[in-house]
């Protein structure tokens, strides 16, 4: 069981990250390459292939280093160190390729917008209630069992040597499902904002808006299952035994979701764009390193990423920084309060 948890929680995410980063250069909108507006044919030129080669060499080097660190130093260092090394390598590889591509930038191509109807959140609108329903069910179970709960109990809070006993307070008992609901709400608001206030590209072969709705609901359900499962810990007389098994099952679910998502993305990446347009309707000057978008003249709150699939915030929009900072601040404060409630450990 230990080795299974190690594989699905440590090695697999790192390998997954390197795998998905490997194919990302081919997933940009036509006319975009490593965050730069280029001629559509540029990726096939020797300079384009050189940039991809350099990117993948750095990525692979850091990826192997990350896996080696995880395997050799397992148990001695932070479990997240491997993934941090892989992320750092990904960032370095991107920066190198971006720098190699910048001299080939072209003036902004014509912007093309679809005049068709924008997809709405429905029919997934009611499905958004499911994760909140799961967490409400967990909270009801805890509420029902409240009188019979002991004064000191396990809530899923961890110390250096595993689960720790904490004092029974409303925040320590209901804190985990509350955190789950806040995180689900944050995910929901981000995706709803993207679908209703985000830029839709006419040349989007991934169908980003509808795909986002499905990713949203799957992430929310996973989040609700994870936090809901951990939230039920106070009802277990001896949770130390089953926690490992539940964690392993949950990690397998997460991994299955990620592999499924990647399969969908790979299949969709082979589609031809519905419209033969280049670029992403945003000027190069609004992009910092092709990663951060800051453009006050653009009314879009969310814009498609230039490198990768998904969206990013327009930090030049008056609401841009708040969309990220405010929910994270609320989640941070509640998380601190829940952690503080757990400090009454015996």
């Amino acid at each position: 069981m230990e080795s299974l948890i190690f594989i699905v929680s440590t090695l697999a995410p790192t390998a997954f990250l390197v795998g998905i980063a490997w194919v990302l250069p081919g997933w940009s909108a036509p006319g975009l390459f490593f965050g730069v507006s280029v001629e559509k044919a540029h990726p096939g030129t020797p300079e384009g292939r050189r940039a991809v080669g350099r990117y993948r060499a750095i990525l692979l080097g850091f990826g192997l280093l990350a896996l080696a660190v995880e395997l050799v130093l397992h148990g001695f260092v932070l479990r997240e160190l491997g993934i941090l090394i892989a992320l750092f390598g990904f960032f370095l590889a991107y920066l190198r390729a971006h720098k190699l591509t910048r001299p080939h930038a072209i003036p902004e191509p014509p912007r093309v917008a679809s005049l068709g109807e924008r997809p709405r959140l429905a029919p997934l609108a009611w499905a958004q209630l499911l994760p909140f329903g799961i967490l409400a069910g967990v909270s009801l179970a805890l509420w029902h069992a409240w009188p019979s709960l002991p004064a000191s109990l396990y809530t899923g809070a961890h110390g250096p040597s595993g689960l720790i006993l904490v004092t029974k307070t409303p925040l320590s008992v209901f804190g985990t499902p509350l955190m789950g609901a806040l995180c689900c709400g944050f995910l929901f608001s981000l995706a709803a904002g993207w679908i209703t206030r985000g830029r839709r590209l006419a040349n989007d072969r991934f169908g980003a808006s509808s795909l986002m709705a499905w990713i949203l609901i799957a992430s929310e359900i996973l989040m609700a299952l994870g936090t809901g499962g951990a939230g039920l810990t106070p009802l277990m007389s001896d949770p130390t035994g089953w926690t490992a098994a539940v964690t392993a099952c949950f990690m397998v679910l997460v991994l299955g979701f990620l592999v499924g998502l990647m399969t969908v993305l790979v299949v969709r990446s082979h589609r031809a764009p519905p419209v033969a347009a280049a670029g992403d309707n945003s000027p190069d000057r609004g992009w910092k390193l092709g990663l951060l978008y800051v453009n006050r003249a653009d009314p879009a709150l969310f814009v498609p990423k230039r490198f990768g699939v998904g969206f990013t915030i327009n930090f030049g929009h008056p609401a841009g920084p708040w969309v990220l900072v405010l929910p994270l601040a609320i989640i941070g404060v509640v998380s601190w309060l829940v952690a503080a409630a757990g400090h009454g450990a015996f």
Partner: protein
Amino acid sequence: MPRTLTLDPSASRPAYRQIADALRAQLVAGDFSPGELLPPVRELAVDLGVHHNTVAEAYRSLAEEGWLELTRGRGATVREREVKSADSGVQERFTRQLRELLAHALAEGLSPQDIEKTLERVRRDGLFGRK
């Protein structure tokens, strides 16, 4: 083929004029049927990366020409437009603008054959609509 609208940020023509011209071309070609709704101003502005007023101005000018009906809360609806009989002023203006456009194209390096081919392609694509 999905209906699209193209805007050239490097063109000298104002953005609202480009949007109005591109929409008018599709309205003339009959790509929109009467009663159909155009995308809301905010959505089109977000998709094109231009200010809301730019799209609103384009819609207003098309409404003044009788192509659209603007209703608060409902948006821009395509109208059944009566074809007016052109007076001599319209004919003269069209001839002058066409001469200027042809001179501009020749000055930019297009050959008369290229221009003729382009005109033929535009005619084939339905310049005069499907009516």
